[in-house]
């Protein structure tokens, strides 16, 4: 057990898997000598060699299509997209081949795609996006969004073990900002089990990724007004923990769904629609959604602050629900 950053937890977890399982290899742009744009694989090429730590050409479809082929041949590829935004260049491969091969042809595709995602530091429209909702709509793909160092490692291990294509969204704004205790030994964090980040009785927040911390700050504000907020960190969107969400909804009878991705058609809609349908009798207020507005992610700090849900926005939403 040691305190690690979210970034370190990912890096150590990945190295641990590569040491124990020869089938695991990593491929991506600049992940070798350079150690990756965020240094997650720093030193990996020295330890594992150029054929298990592969510097790829600037060709996302070759990278992920290559992973799929290698996976079907028995390997356990872990690909790094330099930024999550660039996975759009491999959309066809993931949705057409990787997602459907098991259902159509019975061929499992155990690949992991690491996706540094999210905004908060003026990355602009193409280095800040949270494309998890787009993939969560495609049957056959699993979607993982860790928020703590411990989960980051445990969910990565589970992702590598999983016999399906797993999109692993690692939020860049958590990389060095968030620290926490991380067990040294190997462990798995199960998919589909939400984490109760904070217990409460009056209002439930359902969220994931960096927004967990925004929600937490807002919850602290409300604690001063004696409103007790429960925060559920979904950890994984596909599968997502309907049971935990519906139970918490029944307990507090008021729910706020929060995400950093844009609002219309975001995964928050799926969660809100499910709660509204299945906990209809238990709700004392409409299920509220807070998300980024329907625009590209703006570059300028003044605009980006207005774009990404802020603590004040969440606190206001929680008060509104509390007072409903």
């Amino acid at each position, binding site marked *: 057990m040691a305190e690690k950053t979210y970034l370190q937890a990912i890096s150590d977890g990945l190295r641990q898997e590569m040491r124990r399982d020869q089938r695991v*290899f990593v491929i991506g742009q600049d992940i070798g000598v350079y150690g990756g744009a965020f240094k997650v694989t720093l030193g990996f090429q020295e330890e594992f060699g150029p*054929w*298990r730590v*592969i510097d*790829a*050409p600037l*060709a996302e*479809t*070759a*990278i*992920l*299509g*290559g*992973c*799929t*082929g*290698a*996976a*079907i*041949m*028995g*390997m356990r*590829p872990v690909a790094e997209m330099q930024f999550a935004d660039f996975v759009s260049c491999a959309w*066809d*491969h993931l949705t*057409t*081949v990787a997602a*459907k*091969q*098991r*259902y*159509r*042809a*019975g*061929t*499992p*595709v*155990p690949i992991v795609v690491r996706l540094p995602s999210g905004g908060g530091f003026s990355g602009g429209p193409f280095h800040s996006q949270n494309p998890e909702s787009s993939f969560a709509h495609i*049957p*056959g793909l*699993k979607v993982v969004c860790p928020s703590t160092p411990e989960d980051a490692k445990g969910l990565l291990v589970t992702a590598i073990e999983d*016999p*399906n294509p797993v999109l692993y969204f690692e939020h860049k704004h958590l990389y060095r900002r968030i620290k926490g205790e991380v067990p040294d030994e190997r462990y798995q964090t199960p998919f589909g089990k939400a984490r109760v980040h904070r217990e409460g009785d009056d209002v439930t927040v359902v969220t994931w990724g960096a927004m967990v911390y925004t929600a937490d700050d807002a919850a602290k504000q409300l604690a001063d007004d004696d409103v007790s907020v429960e925060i559920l960190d979904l950890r994984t969107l596909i599968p997502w923990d309907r049971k935990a969400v519906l139970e918490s909804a029944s307990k507090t009878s008021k729910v706020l769904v929060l995400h950093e991705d844009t609002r219309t058609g975001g995964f928050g809609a799926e969660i809100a629609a499910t709660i509204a349908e299945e906990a209809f009798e238990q709700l004392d207020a409409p299920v509220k959604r807070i998300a980024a507005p329907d625009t590209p992610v703006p570059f300028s700090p003044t605009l980006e602050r207005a774009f990404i849900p802020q603590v004040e926005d969440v606190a206001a939403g929680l008060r509104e629900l509390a007072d409903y």
Partner: protein
Amino acid sequence: MAIAREAEPAGSLKEVRQAGLDREDLLGVYRNLLVTRGIEERGHILYKQGKIPGSFYTGRGNEAAAVGVATAMGPDDVGTPLHRDMGVHVTRGVEPWRILAQYMGRSDGPTQGRDGNVHMADSKLGLLAMVSHLPAMLPVAVGCALAFRIREEKRVALGWFGEGASARGDTHEAMTLAGVRQLPVVFVCDNNQWAYSTPTHLEFPTEHVADRAEAYGFEGVVVDGTDVLAVYREAKRAIEKARSGGGPTLVECLTLRMEGHAVHDDAFYVPKELFEEWAKADPLERFRIWLRENADMSDEEEDEIAGDVKRLLNDALRRADESPDPDPSTLLEGVFATPEDLDTPHHK
């Protein structure tokens, strides 16, 4: 322009023996050609009988290209054949009745009715099921080769694509990665001169697709796709070159698509003369004559093979038709794989 090498036609029995096929093998090749065409002809009848849902595609004219390449593959080699490559499935040993069941969407087809026509493969025979999106399986074939390279196995992956699909970015990314890393992969281009209704000069700007191979750092060769033994020889060369660390090759098999793009298409846009010209080079007839002239195949042998194939296919028809439709209650099964699914030859 870097012109790809043009392969010479098949030679004498002696030559072919040196290339690795004895007389028995050759009769087997002939048989596979007959079975390939036979399956598609039976499929056509089933379609006309309304027993095949959706559309229906054949590889008529491409039988020798498909069988020739597949014959050159080693037992542990893998490949991603496409919709004109029935001969690959046949040569790798997929049972015809299961293919007919696939056509009809029955539960004994390789995809158990979840996908149609040639969108299928038996992974235990080293084949990966194609997707419609062309040529999305090429990067996957390169990935198979990457696994072989990482594990230093002497295996080769084959990726098929049509000359029309050569325009897609996937072709370029697959060949770039394969070329940069000199991976053990062979790219096989089924150049049947048409992409649906589109002629080659509107698909790509060179005379041959293989002319582009050198832009990816490997060799290209154009072979007459109606000459099964020439195809075999070039495929064999390319596969063994890849196996021995020589990197990729692009083998372009030149044919003519002898029917419409699919059964609904009468190919009015293809000049009649072109069909007439290529009809003279029917791959089955060509090889039959070669066998008689070079391997003195007797009337008896010929009849025996034809009879066997006929029985095999009639059998297949009966058996396929007995296969039940998939049970709707299974609709939701298998979207996600379970650890047990990894219990395949490849995941050992």
